[in-house]
């Protein structure tokens, strides 16, 4: 067929206006599937302990068989696993996180304020890390191949090699122990302190997470911007006489935005692990600290709830970033790194 008769193609998935929704739908489905998988793994892994072990953990080592039986009945542990799974899932979705074996309190009471703090910590991190990462990435890309670019890049590589707790401890050592500027123990400040004490409690954990996140965002930004700047359409735009500044921001960056946002979305997932670690380093009373503590005490119900909450939060944030990436660049819509 000559090109004159060739029909104008449409993207996969239908007409152009529909495609944004179509792809968003796909992402939503895939997010839900992931959550489902997390729920499955969480529930079944934590259910590996026998009811007797759980009873002992809850009530103490020396319990009678009768007590054990009562415990099992109370928590419906005698029902088939699959049924319990659906019960749990249904409850979770309704906001009922169950009652902990260990604390004997509804999990919801302890977990929700922690969720708030962890969210705040994450948001504070993103608010600082993303602009810094973007700025350094763009700077580096514009100086691609120069010494300053190489230095920044190697710096980022080395920094990314440090585990978060090492970074955290270093910051703790310098700012809390040596300089005594900030509190060693965040927990106290948050629970009882004034507003300024509360804010101070956030500083070191946030700083640690920022230092851990910036290299990743920077390196991805650098590569994405570089590719966009070196792309043929950038040269074509320059040759059309479009002013350089506009070429960089309106044409090139638009194409770089997609991969950059994908990287940020990925970083959000990494932050999930980072938050868990950092909260433990600073004894920060968030979800991460609770999770580790609960694993230690064998508080499986809390573990289940916290794991799901953490997973859901981070996956949703990541989903939002992916959607934003798709809005900016139609080619990226269908793909997900």
């Amino acid at each position, binding site marked *: 067929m000559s090109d004159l008769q060739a029909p104008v193609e449409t993207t996969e998935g239908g007409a152009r206006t529909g495609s944004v929704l179509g792809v968003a739908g796909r992402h939503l489905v895939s997010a839900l599937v992931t959550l489902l998988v997390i729920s499955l*793994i969480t529930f079944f*892994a934590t259910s*590996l302990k026998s009811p007797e072990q759980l009873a002992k953990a809850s009530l103490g080592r020396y319990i009678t068989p009768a007590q054990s039986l009562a415990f099992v009945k109370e928590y419906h542990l005698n029902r088939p696993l699959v049924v319990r799974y659906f019960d749990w899932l249904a409850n979770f979705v309704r906001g009922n996180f169950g009652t902990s074996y260990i604390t004997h309190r509804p999990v919801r009471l302890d977990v929700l304020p922690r969720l708030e703090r962890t969210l705040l910590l994450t948001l504070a991190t993103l608010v600082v890390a993303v602009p810094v990462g973007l700025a350094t990435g763009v700077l580096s890309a514009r100086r691609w191949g120069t010494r300053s670019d190489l230095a920044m890049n190697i710096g980022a590589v*080395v920094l990314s090699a440090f585990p978060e*707790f090492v970074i955290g*401890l270093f910051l703790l050592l310098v700012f809390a122990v040596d300089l005594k500027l900030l509190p060693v123990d965040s927990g106290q400040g948050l629970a009882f302190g004034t507003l300024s004490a509360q804010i101070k409690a956030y500083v070191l954990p946030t700083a640690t997470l920022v230092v851990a996140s910036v290299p990743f965002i920077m390196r991805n930004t650098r590569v994405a911007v570089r590719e966009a700047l070196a792309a043929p359409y950038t040269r074509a735009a320059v040759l059309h006489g479009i002013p350089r500044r506009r070429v960089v921001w309106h044409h090139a960056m638009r194409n770089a935005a997609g991969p950059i946002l994908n990287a940020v979305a990925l970083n959000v997932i990494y932050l999930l*692990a980072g938050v868990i670690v950092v909260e433990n380093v600073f004894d920060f009373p968030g979800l991460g600290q609770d999770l*580790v503590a609960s*694993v230690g005490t064998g508080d499986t119900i809390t573990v289940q709830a916290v794991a799901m909450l953490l997973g859901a939060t981070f996956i949703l944030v990541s989903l939002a970033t992916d959607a934003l990436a798709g809005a900016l660049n139609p080619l990226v819509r269908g793909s997900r790194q």
Partner: protein
Amino acid sequence: MSTTQAELDLVSVAEEPGYQRPISLFRAVMRTAEGRIGLGLAVFMLLLISVGRLAAPFSPTAINVGPPIAGPSMAHLLGTDDLGRDVLSRFLYGGDTVLLVPLAAVTLALVIGGFLGLLAAYRGGWVDRLVARVFDVFLVIPALLLALVLVAGLGTSVVVIVLTVTVVYVPRLGRIVRGAAGRIAVQDFIVAAELRGESSRWVVVREILPNVAGPVLSAYALYVTYGIIFVVTLSYLGLGAQPPSSDWGLMVSDSQAFISFNPWATVAPALGIAAMSVAFTLVADAANRQLARGNDRVGTGV
């Protein structure tokens, strides 16, 4: 023709000025400062964690060999911890698990993931789609979350840690192998091999594998680094090595409580972890950089 075809064609690309013969990845890495520093540091750390213990003045588990939480002194170069144990000795003994556990797990993950990835790339069709789907599902699960959940259910032990790390990295490494092998599998020389009636074994081992060795090994180095960070973090959280082990991660968390009094008990293992991780990261990064430069300089083989 005035001159013989043969003579003129002798002037191949290789003779032109500025042309550089392809070199192996290893040599290319060694040529960069980054690669040399990384490899050097890695060798040093390997020596430290293997034979360093021969220089330890005390046993790592011997308690009360000195006053507790004492600063550095002649007898105890890095001071002592809360149980009066010599920090230096504990440090010299504590590095092997930091490397060996991730190394074992990542190697296992490479073998399994690599096999699946190669299979998917070579067979194509529904096998490829299935493997890719499975990988995708597991890829999204955050590693630490999975680890915590598994430990909650199965308890802490080396086996559980290795299992967790393997499960987490199989899809990641598998995806890389699948990608690299996939790019090779669509090349015409693979079709040419099949049209010769070559066995699958031949195609995978002699045609595909030599061409993916470079990228795969470079990814392996990278994931060993990730593994190191991951495993040591688990130890730090108390989910990995257990007392009285002087595993560096555990050492850091054990001594954090008295960091104001003898920071060395925390700083020494933290530095050790950092050095190990940085070493492997530099090597992996140098390798990736060389590969990204393109095949005109660096052969994809090792």
